[in-house]
């Protein structure tokens, strides 16, 4: 007999926000987790180095995400100004 011991569904995490988006740190963390995975059974020394590397990756990812957000904001402000919506452009500039 061929038998699978289990077919299982994992646990998702859900974040729902009110009157705001999800903080950039969350996305940087998710990106970092996707790029770098540290095995729980790794040798402690290897694990320590991997965790340090992961921390560096997090900050690099976060920095460039911030730059991307700023660029997108610039696009939106320019779009509003070109459309004659100076008041909306000003609100965006203050956010």
């Amino acid at each position: 007999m061929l038998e699978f011991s289990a077919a299982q569904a994992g646990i998702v995490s859900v974040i729902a926000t009110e009157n705001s988006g999800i903080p950039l740190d969350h996305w940087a963390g998710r990106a970092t987790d996707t790029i770098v995975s540290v095995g729980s059974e790794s040798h402690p020394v290897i694990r320590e180095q991997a965790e340090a590397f992961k921390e560096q990756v997090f900050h690099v990812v976060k920095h460039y995400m911030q730059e991307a957000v700023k660029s997108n904001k610039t696009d939106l402000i320019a779009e509003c100004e070109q459309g004659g919506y100076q008041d909306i452009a000003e609100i965006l500039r203050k956010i």
Partner: protein
Amino acid sequence: MGISQAICTSFKKELLQGVHNFTNGSGGGTTTTTGSGNAFKLALYTSSADLGATATVFTTNGQSSGTGYSSGGAALTNVTPSTASTTALTDFVDLTFSSSSVTARGAMIYNSSTAAGTANRAVLILDFGADKVSQAGDFTISFPTPDASNAIIRIA
């Protein structure tokens, strides 16, 4: 009855029939799935839904509604199946309902492709454990680490 987290029993049978293909893009699959990945979607449900292992197909009964959410939910991005030791697993890219006002207690992942003659076959049911509410905000589902112990779909 409510929502109970489970891999749908019909899905387990359909796996043995070669109905579903979780590949991202071309590859994998059988003659019934034309060798390219199927399209999977995630639909949100309120606590009034009755969903569990016996679900076989997407239903609108108990489905969430609100700004930023359309019936049927949203498309998922497949991550091509892999193995970790003796476990086979697959994953999806995180999904966000942006600028939404919606309440959900759980979700269904289903195959929106017409596979072996039938569309919208249920894959699994997710129980969020409590109502999750976005209000003019983001509603994000983050999938677990794709490893042998945590991946969203695992066959050990």
